[in-house]
């Protein structure tokens, strides 16, 4: 059995395998598929709770992933952000001496989440310039009025 604690290298190798079979576009096609079928809870939370849904989703996910992060929510401004001080996934991949991470591993976080959030009217930005240090920064900007309209 592959433990969920061994998933990240399996994920990285899957990206490599798909790229070997076809090309980078096929990897992106897989990320889009995974976004559609796997991130339904993020979609539901944000559709129901607005930008607070991001807070709700990532509070659970990042705790279970034992991430080192700072998360900020400003509902009045319609802004949510994650400053990832040390990403548990990329951090693990960088620590392994015997496997090489997929070259564009961190890009999956761009494709997967953007595909959920932007159709819901939010602007999603991710800074991947420091991923060689397992660090990144995500900003989601949304509708300031959402919370008021929904009585939150």
């Amino acid at each position, binding site marked *: 059995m592959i*433990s969920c604690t061994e*998933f*990240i290298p399996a994920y990285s190798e899957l990206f490599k*395998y798909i790229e070997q079979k076809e090309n980078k576009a096929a990897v992106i096609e897989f990320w889009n598929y*995974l976004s559609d*079928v*796997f991130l339904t809870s993020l979609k539901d939370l944000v559709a129901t709770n607005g930008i607070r849904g991001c807070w709700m989703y990532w509070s659970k996910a990042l705790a279970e992933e*034992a991430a080192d992060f*700072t998360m900020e929510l400003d509902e009045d401004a319609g802004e949510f952000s994650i400053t990832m001080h040390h990403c548990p996934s990329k951090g693990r991949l960088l620590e392994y001496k015997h496997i090489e991470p997929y070259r564009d591993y961190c890009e999956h976080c761009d494709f997967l989440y953007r595909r959920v959030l932007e159709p819901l009217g939010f602007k999603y930005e991710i800074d991947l310039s420091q991923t060689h240090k397992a660090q990144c920064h995500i900003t989601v900007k949304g509708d300031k009025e959402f919370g008021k309209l929904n009585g939150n």
Partner: protein
Amino acid sequence: MAKQTLTRKASDNKYYHKDFHIALNFGIEYLKEKFGKEAVKEYLVQFADAYYSPLRKELKEKGLIAIKEHYEKIYKIEDAKFDMSFSPEELIIYLFASPAVMHIKSNGHRVSTLFRETVLTVNKTICRNTNYDVEMIDYNEKNGGYQLRFHRREN
């Protein structure tokens, strides 16, 4: 509405994100649909060859105790119910229900018909080029439980 801030260190939480089992299942199913059954096995061989190379090295050096210790650790992390019968010549693992399969199912997802390859193909690959081999004696489609027999290869 006030601003909220949450800061956590890695040491604040246990690394245990069970939904990764669901993501792996989707990955297996995607490969099967897009590239065919053989691609699933080919991918798992490639993954296991790379990721489990230290375990294979240990298997060569220490024998089946390396496999026993590896799965004891994994099953403990996953809170799995299991039993093992061990001798230097043979290791039989009884996993009564797979935490991966049970998590996938309990979240309303269909388990890929090739999910069992995450057990058989992966362990076959770990044993490749060693003095040991593995066979799957039983696999329970309902809960993913299995009986695996690792043994010394016959010359």
